[in-house]
């Protein structure tokens, strides 16, 4: 292996992470709907069946509750399962297993049984898949103590978060934004694990903190570039991990800039964005020079028509507008 950069997509990075895990640890196996012969609904696991065989790349029936629960049981039994759920909306069929079992067994058993399980799923909108394939429930899941919630937005994180998640003794949910799979870029050929505990500052700035995660990171970075054109230097914080939340990085950024805008593809009411704002208000209220703003998805089930879907989602102009409003508020 060498550290020379190679060109690849987010999908390639995820696949490389899976191959790596399967090669490194015989306890690792992947199961889910159409992960094998079909190659994965989003082609993430394409070719893995041929390489690792049907025992380790297991196609499942359409039984989300059973195969997610079986992942929990297999983790209890000494394996390191990776369960793929085709899309975030389908994970609701396994909510009982995720919330009532994966998140509780360590606690209910008084610390005797931990659940080293990784659940991957596609999240988010932007592909005209309408109201049953397009939502962002990461914020919901982040409500649950006992699980960890990751949102890889970069190639490094797509490549490195899985490894760290598998090393974690507790259940980890990985939300892969569907609009990112085709994102291409350069990554060191020997890229390895990344931490799954901290938020990252993706762009340094002095005037306003734009706080986001997952699919909206790139829109937020684009908005920051636009803002730079009109003399506003925005700092962009990528949360990376929604639970446990790295509030320290967020608060430190807001303390520097004194202004904040949260960009969240989830709905606004009772959301991850609401939690971030609460942390800011609780922690650095007196550092604020302006009310905190947020850009979230419109509170409608996701519509199919392209123009309506675009209107429902956080977009660059709305982020720019929100930052400008926050900047023009009187200190």
């Amino acid at each position, binding site marked *: 292996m060498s550290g020379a950069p190679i060109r690849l997509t987010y999908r390639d990075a995820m696949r490389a992470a899976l191959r790596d895990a399967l090669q490194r640890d015989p306890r690792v196996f992947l199961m889910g709907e159409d992960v094998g012969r079909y190659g994965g609904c989003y082609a993430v696991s394409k070719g893995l069946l041929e390489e690792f065989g049907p025992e380790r790349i297991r196609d499942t029936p359409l039984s989300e509750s059973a195969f997610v629960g079986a992942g929990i049981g297999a983790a209890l039994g000494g394996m390191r399962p990776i369960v793929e759920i085709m899309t975030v909306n389908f994970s609701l069929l396994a909510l009982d297993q995720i919330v*009532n079992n994966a998140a509780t067994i360590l606690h209910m058993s008084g610390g*005797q049984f931990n659940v080293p399980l990784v659940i991957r799923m596609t999240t988010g909108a932007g592909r005209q898949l309408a109201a049953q394939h397009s939502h962002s429930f990461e914020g919901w899941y982040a409500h649950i103590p006992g699980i960890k919630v990751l949102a890889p937005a970069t190639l490094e994180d797509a490549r490195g978060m899985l490894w760290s998640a598998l090393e974690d003794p507790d259940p980890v949910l990985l939300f892969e934004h569907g609009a990112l799979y085709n994102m291409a870029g350069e990554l060191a050929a020997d890229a390895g694990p990344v931490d799954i505990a901290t938020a990252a500052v993706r762009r340094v700035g002095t005037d306003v903190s734009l706080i986001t995660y997952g699919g909206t990171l790139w829109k937020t970075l684009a908005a920051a570039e636009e803002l730079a054109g009109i003399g506003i230097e925005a700092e962009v914080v990528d949360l990376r991990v929604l639970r446990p939340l790295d509030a320290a990085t967020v608060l430190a950024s807001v303390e520097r800039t004194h202004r904040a805008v949260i960009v969240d593809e989830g709905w606004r009411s009772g959301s991850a964005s609401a939690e971030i704002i609460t942390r800011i208000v609780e922690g650095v209220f007196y550092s604020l020079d302006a009310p905190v703003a947020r850009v979230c998805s419109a509170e409608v089930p996701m519509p199919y028509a392209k123009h309506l879907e675009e209107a429902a989602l956080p977009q660059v102009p709305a982020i720019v507008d929100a930052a400008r409003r926050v900047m023009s508020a009187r200190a």
Partner: protein
Amino acid sequence: MVVSSPASSVALSRESGLGLLRDMLRIRRLEEKCMELYSAGTIRGFLHLYIGEEAVAVGALRALQPDDAVVATYREHGHALVRGISAGAIMAEMFGKVEGCSRGRGGSMHLFDAATRFYGGNAIVGGGLPLAVGLALADKLQGRARVTACFFGDGAVAEGEFHECMNLASLWNLPVLFCCENNLYAMGTALARAQAETDLARKAASFAMPAWPVDGMDVLAVADATARAVPAIRAGGGPCFLEFRTYRFRPHSAFDPELYRSKQEVEAWKQRDPITTFTARLREQQLVDDAGLTRLEGEIAREIEAAIAFADAGHLEPVEDLTRFVYSEPRKAPESR
């Protein structure tokens, strides 16, 4: 479908007969005491008694090896006790003490024990089945000849998870013993009011696995059925479903006024009390007499008194530890010498 064979194929020695009776009595007396302590306010939360169904856990668990796994429901005091969790650890759990088998974090509905591979104490009906499937999958993938016994009631059969799990276990040929404790009521809803097909073994057989009904009031019939099923599962024959037809003598939980069944029905089933009928059988075969029974009851009473004393003397976990066990704690490095 195979019909359960006569129980006579289990050779009944004095030792095994008394062992079965002892375990059924241990459950019964423990739970009678639990109910007293519940009325006294010492045990709180929900309390679901197994009284009347003891033959199922006692007969079925006999067929397991120490490294097999058990997944049970919220009506699991009996399974926990027979599997080898001490009466003291069970009682301390219900007292909410740190000496409890789940450190007082679980209570009556969530007994867990790593030493005996006892995976709960699961209180979402049907929710334990996927765990059992996964535990069995782990054994299969790691080439271990272990069996996972999964207990659930007739109520679970109505859940989607039941159907998903029966299919998955059969499709993947996994070593699961599905133990359906059909006590005819899902809380207060009679089986016939919830299921279009009330023959649960027949329903299970449609998942292409051996499935047959067993008289769950007869501990020998239960022991015989599981003694036949478990070796076949262990040998790689795939899962098996046993429908144990049984009856709960007590209310669903301590809050249940029992409006949904008649006293006559309960009394009729009590005529088939697994402990009374099995005791009569042992007497008939001169395997036990009055003196032997008195001795047995005395031993059990002392075990339970000791359990209560242990629970009573136990400690409350410090409130400062409240948020422990939400995530795993870093493993302590071995101390250097």
